[in-house]
């Protein structure tokens, strides 16, 4: 804030990038133009600004002209921003006073045949950067200490594996399990394929190794009662059964490995009514305890209570393998046992396909049933069971005699995990399982930094997959713990107490638990949890909440600079729309970059303004753009479901839908505002969105809010109330 008081001395370095920019954009003219902008005391062109000669020049000019803001107009910040920031730091400037204008990916590469327009656009982008730079402030980055210890919740195979992996690296691990005995589900399983080793034996070895490891502190018969704090410094209260004294520990990271339960299909297929109708797990326990009365005819029914229309809509992944495995074990017990599997679809993906082949070769019968005509199980007077099923391939109903019916039911989340989700403030998906922050990019992470999930707590999976996730979480948790410190970027929420009205809209809007409400409503920002999306700032009704480095005044300065040009008056003959595109710094900005890299051409009317997340775009920013004379505004974000901040793009969409309803009051056609989504691989889609939007705006004509020629200010149309 104090920066406003010092005299602004801005330096602009325009890069030719060899031919890449220089062949299309008139770089010398752009550099000359930059010199005319307010507060610019130095501007030059360079052949390659990122070369050592180019970087040296930046450093030299910072010193010579006492520059306190630096702008490089060249390529995408995604690849070169950090290099130029480092150069500024070497010259004694704070890296947060550096700004980039992307005149390659967003300009010369996408308007290759329109040198005049591209040059105009480059000037616009630089004018926006200069205006924004004037409002930038030096920032300090804070460091957080990381307690090199982990809490692993759940002592099944996933939890023990994660714990062992970390303990072997020298980290302290608190391993908590609600049961008196470690091992989880594997204690209750029979034999594992392909080795046919006893599951209990496998887990026993692991448990012994865990007990023997001095870095692992076991807490059995124990629940996690309370968790507060953030990455590096979680305060955890543990409650052990039969103990009044809760135990308090401090850890740096948390791994959730609470496993899952088998669904008990009460009321389906005579389960719990006839003792010879049992689930796969109960069947394995009979085998494990040697209590199985040797059956003659066994029928297995698949997808019982799974892949339903509502509720448990998911495929439980493991049941087909389990059913085949157990069927083969029965055949091994006695080849004369008649085994039939009634299925909807057999899903033995990858290597597991061979068990299906084995089963076929071992005379196991398969009958495919129709979802609309599911099998029926009835008890006969003699105690045996009759299973009637409509065989899709036969086209007829078949009745099977059976003395044991085994139901393959899905894994479901357990009740304790629901409580844990509330305690850790991490989400469950619609299927009830723990929900990772990003299915592809961060598959074992929660949005809350320092908390990870592995194993069946995250969804049904087999042992191999659970182990892979367990190692992944151990690896993820070890990153901050090995570093012992993490540097927190300065792009964080910040609240101005003076104007805050304590409504706590920010508290509710934050998905990262980074804002806590004090008792009388004062929002308290937990910087370690803040990811810098800026959604809270856009939700704040008072403008009291701001995102550092993307404050309202910084964004609005760029918007105003774009439109405050003498040329942006009423068009005379040819109408060239000027369109502002807000792009989130993740997918949609990358998509725009990719359009450039792929040389996909689109109309030169679009000016991209980078924001951290589409959810940062405030209604004020959009209104400001229209007030300043924008012909169109398009907000772009990651694909729905892929937002790097959970659901910032959904919030942006809601906001756009709402604004479309209101823009009419200002005399602005709602079609002038649009929102689009693109993944970072969808350069073509980005270009198409821009092309379509420009066409739409061309149809609509110039915005009524454009300043009139001759300096007359735009007057709002007040007649439409």
């Amino acid at each position, binding site marked *: 804030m104090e920066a406003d008081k010092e005299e602004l001395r801005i330096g602009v370095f325009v890069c030719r990038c060899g031919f890449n920019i220089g062949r299309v954009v008139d770089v010398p003219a752009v550099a000359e133009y930059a010199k005319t902008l307010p507060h610019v005391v130095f501007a030059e062109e360079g052949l390659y600004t990122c070369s050592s000669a180019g970087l040296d020049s930046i450093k030299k000019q910072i010193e010579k002209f006492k520059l306190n803001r630096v702008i490089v107009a060249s390529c995408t910040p995604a690849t070169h921003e950090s290099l130029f920031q480092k150069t500024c730091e070497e010259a004694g400037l704070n890296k947060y006073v550096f700004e980039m204008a992307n005149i390659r990916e967003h300009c010369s590469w996408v308007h290759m045949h329109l040198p005049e327009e591209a040059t105009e656009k480059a000037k616009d982008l630089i004018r926006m950067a200069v205006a924004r730079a004037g409002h930038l402030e030096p920032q300090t980055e804070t460091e957080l200490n990381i307690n090199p210890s982990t809490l692993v919740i759940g002592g099944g195979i996933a939890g023990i594996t994660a714990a062992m992996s970390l303990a072997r690296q020298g980290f302290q691990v608190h391993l908590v399990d609600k049961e008196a005995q470690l091992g989880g589900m594997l204690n209750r399983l029979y034999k594992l394929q392909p080795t046919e080793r006893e599951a209990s034996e496998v887990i026993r070895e692991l448990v012994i190794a865990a007990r023997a490891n001095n870095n692992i502190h076991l807490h059995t018969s124990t629940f996690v009662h309370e968790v507060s704090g953030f990455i590096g410094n979680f305060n955890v209260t543990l409650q052990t059964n039969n103990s009044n004294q809760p135990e308090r520990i401090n850890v740096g990271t948390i791994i959730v490995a609470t496993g899952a339960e088998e669904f008990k299909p009460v009321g389906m297929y005579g389960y719990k009514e006839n003792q010879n109708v049992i689930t796969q797990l109960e069947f394995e326990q009979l085998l494990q305890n040697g209590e199985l009365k040797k059956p003659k005819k066994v029928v297995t029914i698949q997808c019982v209570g799974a892949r339903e229309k509502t509720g448990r809509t998911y495929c439980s992944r493991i049941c087909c393998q389990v059913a085949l495995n157990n069927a083969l074990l029965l055949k091994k017990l006695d080849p004369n046992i008649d085994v039939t599997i009634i299925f909807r679809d057999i899903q033995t993906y990858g290597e597991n396909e061979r068990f299906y082949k084995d089963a076929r070769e071992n005379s196991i019968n398969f009958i495919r049933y129709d979802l609309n005509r599911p099998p029926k199980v009835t008890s006969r007077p003699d105690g045996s069971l009759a299973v009637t099923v409509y065989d899709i391939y036969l086209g007829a109903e078949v009745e099977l005699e059976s003395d044991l019916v085994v139901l393959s039911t899905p894994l479901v989340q357990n009740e304790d995990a629901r409580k844990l989700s509330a305690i850790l403030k991490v989400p469950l998906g619609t299927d009830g399982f723990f929900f990772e922050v990003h299915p592809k990019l961060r598959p074992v992470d929660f949005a809350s930094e320092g908390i990870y999930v592995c194993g069946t707590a995250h969804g049904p999976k087999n042992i191999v997959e659970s182990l892979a996730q367990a190692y992944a979480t151990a690896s993820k948790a070890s990153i901050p713990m090995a570093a012992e410190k993490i540097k927190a970027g300065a792009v964080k929420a910040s609240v101005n107490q003076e104007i805050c009205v304590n409504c706590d809209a920010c508290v509710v809007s934050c998905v990262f638990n980074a804002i806590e409400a004090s008792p009388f409503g004062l929002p308290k920002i937990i910087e370690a949890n803040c990811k810098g999306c800026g959604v809270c700032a856009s939700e704040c*009704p008072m403008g009291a909440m701001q995102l550092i480095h993307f404050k309202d005044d910084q964004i609005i300065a760029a918007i105003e600079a774009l439109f405050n040009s003498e040329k942006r008056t009423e068009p005379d003959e040819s109408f060239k729309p000027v369109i502002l595109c807000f792009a989130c710094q993740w997918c949609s900005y990358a998509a725009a970059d990719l359009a450039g890299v792929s040389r996909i051409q689109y109309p030169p009317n679009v000016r991209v303004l980078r924001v951290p997340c589409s959810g940062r775009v405030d209604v004020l920013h959009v209104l400001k753009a229209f007030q300043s004379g924008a012909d169109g505004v398009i907000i772009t974000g990651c694909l729905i479901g892929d937002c790097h901040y959970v659901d910032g793009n959904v919030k942006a969409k809601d906001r756009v839908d709402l604004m479309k309803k209101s823009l009419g009051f200002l005399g602005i056609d709602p079609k002038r505002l649009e929102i689009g989504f693109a993944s970072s691989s969808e350069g073509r889609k980005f270009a198409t969105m821009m092309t379509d939007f420009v066409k739409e705006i061309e149809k609509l004509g110039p915005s009524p809010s454009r300043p009139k020629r001759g300096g007359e200010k735009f007057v709002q149309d007040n007649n439409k109330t």
Partner: protein
Amino acid sequence: MAPHINLFEFSAKEVAAKTKPGQFVVLRIDEDGERIPLTIADANAEKGTISLACHEVGKTTTQLGKLKEGDSILDLLGPLGNPARIEKFGTVICIGGGVMVAPLHFQAKAFREAGNYVIGIVGATTKDHLIFLDEMGRTCNELCVATDDGTKGYKGLDFLTDLIAKRKVDRVVAEGPIVMMKAVSDITRQNGIPTLVNLIPIMVDGMGMCGACRVTVGGKVLFACVDGLEFDGHQVDFDELLSRLKMYTDQEKLAYVFWEKGGRN
């Protein structure tokens, strides 16, 4: 009274004659304005006036703040809601936060008149936002002050735990931000002290018709306007309430911008 907090006295004879502490009114400033519920901060049957305190947080409240003495508003409906239960309980803690200290003072006065020993707690985020300190000081037998940032009085609400441990408290009445009422209820739950919170969620008609103000109390869905405003703090689902309250933040912001910039509603 404090930055952006205003106290109004409205002349409304019929309303004033019937108002009891804990009730509210729904008002409109003009034909195009939204209807906002405000808890009554005082009533003077003789003068025929009621008092309302209001924090400028959006379009309507800011517009209200711009009114000058002698101005009038379109309509004011009330008194609505049930009066607070005022009896002789013994020792009563009246704890208020932010702007809601004003209506709480109305209740505190009634508790004192009913023969209770009243411990008043006035809280705000920071020193400058404390209101009604003098009034509460005069009305209550004892007065505590608390702020989030510790600029005056106790810092936060932790002192309440000690206070109720040391003293025999028969009833706690809380009126303020949802997070405050939640925190108070969490503290008193451990000692089992009956705790009444005053909820004023988003409302439309204020007469039990629209259901906008629904709150979950002890698993049951109730309407704040006709079942409240007073509820058992130990049973209220505060988290749900908090999320419901933020349903229209974008709309509110738009309304504010349009009103401020365009002079329209």
